């Protein structure tokens, strides 16, 4: 009797182990691949960041000036947002264009939802956010950014994913922040924060998904939303920063993507000033202003946050400066070449890839020694995006 029940148990557990698993297929791993935008020719090149080689080129992606992208959670697909409103799904494993739609007249950026099911695209013209299924790019819903003052739709900037399957974005001309739940993606539920400040031009979310911060062009300060305490509303920090200083003209809007937490400091590019701001996260007050050689565009933190690499707007766009976050000072100046557009760190930060548009080169530097390791030929390169972004909130 006991023997029989033992055999039964054995059979049950055996079948539970062998029957239901789909098996591991032997496809190539692509966790060290990346996609580089060739902005003038409407193409991208797929690269390998371990062998430091170009693997293949995918063409026919339309106007890719200022294009950005997000990755599916398995890293296989890049969703590329073009300026002409094109949304392209590129297979990074097989190097081919999987699908492409024109979703609006004029797109600026996008995001992928926490569950990887929904692609959100923000548009300038007509202003708003459109939602699509990640697998087939089928339209789900349109969130029109209409306000009383902007009945035709305000320009949407700073779109990012957020925890609990939400997206957050800012309305540039209307000065609002909207938070949308995608639980019912055909009818997203929207919470609006009004009067958050004048002309938010870009925004970011902290790597842990807690703070959403929008940089303001029309006034001093930064709008901060604490997603742990949404009932507190949007607070303005550094409101008196730069008061009395003459604002310098801005020849390219800074991008607030490379948010840097280091210890109890956070570093952000200043607008209208040639500096990066170090802000204390304990009380959100200014800790120091780090002077730079020009107007910062990207301030990218090395993954360990010990360094921040900064590139610059016209006419200083051949330079890079490296800030040491421990001393909050510049420790290195590099002449990377004419038209530095973007930088991307390898996933753990030992190297940085830099696109030098007017030289048609991507340059790879060692971040410890600042040695130039390798130069790749890429046609008019702009954004560089490694597949490891697939697993990061806000990227």
């Amino acid at each position, binding site marked *: 009797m006991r023997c029989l029940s033992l055999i039964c148990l054995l059979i049950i557990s055996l079948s539970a182990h062998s029957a239901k698993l789909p098996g591991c297929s032997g496809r190539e791993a692509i966790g060290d691949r990346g996609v580089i935008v060739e*902005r003038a020719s409407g193409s991208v090149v797929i690269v390998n960041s371990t062998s430091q080689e170009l693997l293949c080129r995918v063409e026919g992606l339309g*106007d890719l*000036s*200022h294009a950005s992208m997000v990755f599916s959670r398995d890293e296989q697909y890049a969703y590329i947002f073009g*300026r*002409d409103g094109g949304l392209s799904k590129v297979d990074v494993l097989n190097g081919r264009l999987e699908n492409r739609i024109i979703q609006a*007249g*004029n797109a*600026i950026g996008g995001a992928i939802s926490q569950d990887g099911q929904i692609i959100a695209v923000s548009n*300038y*013209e007509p202003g708003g956010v459109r939602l699509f299924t990640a697998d087939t790019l089928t339209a789900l819903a349109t969130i029109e950014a209409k306000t009383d003052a902007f009945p035709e739709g305000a*320009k949407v*900037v700073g779109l990012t994913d957020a925890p609990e399957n939400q997206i957050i974005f800012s309305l*540039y001309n209307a000065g609002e922040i909207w938070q949308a739940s995608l639980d019912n993606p055909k009818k997203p539920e929207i919470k609006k924060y009004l009067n958050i400040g004048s*002309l938010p*031009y870009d925004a970011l979310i902290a790597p842990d998904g807690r703070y959403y911060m929008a940089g303001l*062009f*029309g006034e001093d300060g930064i709008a901060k939303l604490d997603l742990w305490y949404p009932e507190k509303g949007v607070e303005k920090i550094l409101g008196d920063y730069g008061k009395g200083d003459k604002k310098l*003209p*801005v*020849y*390219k*809007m800074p991008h607030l993507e490379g948010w840097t937490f280091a210890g109890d400091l956070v570093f952000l590019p200043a607008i209208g000033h040639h500096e990066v701001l170090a802000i204390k996260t304990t009380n959100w007050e200014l800790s120091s202003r780090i002077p730079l050689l020009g107007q910062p565009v990207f301030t990218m933190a090395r993954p360990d946050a010990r360094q921040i690499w900064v590139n610059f707007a*016209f*006419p200083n766009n051949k330079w890079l400066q490296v800030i040491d976050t421990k001393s909050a000072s510049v420790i290195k100046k590099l002449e990377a070449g004419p*038209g530095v557009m973007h930088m991307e760190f390898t996933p753990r930060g030992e190297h940085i890839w830099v696109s030098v*548009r*007017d030289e048609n080169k991507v340059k790879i530097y060692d971040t410890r020694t600042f040695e130039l390791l390798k130069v790749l030929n890429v046609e008019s390169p702009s954004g560089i995006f490694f597949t490891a972004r697939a697993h990061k909130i806000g990227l």
Partner: protein
Amino acid sequence: MKIHHYLVLILACLLATASLADPKIPTSQRQQELMQLLLDDCGSCHGMTMNGGLGPPLQQSNLAGKPDEYIFVTIRNGTAGTPMPPWHQFLTDDEIYWMIDVLRKETWKKE
């Protein structure tokens, strides 16, 4: 509009007529640089195909009906309180007029 603004406008008009009467065409090498500047640097706000971005679209149809003088002053001095920066440090008046011509004829499309 303050008197000051009128003065600026009148001055700009005078400059405009002077330059229009005797526009100095940039050298072909400089023309190439200017075209690059238009597409890359103006394009970063106005779109590389001038179809708009944070700044308004600058295609032929968008500029139709807007006088050269207005466009000239906007490019030369920027528009205070908005992201449109002044370009007089980097562009001569003749170069700005050449650029306006490029925008009106959409010759950048050939690039």
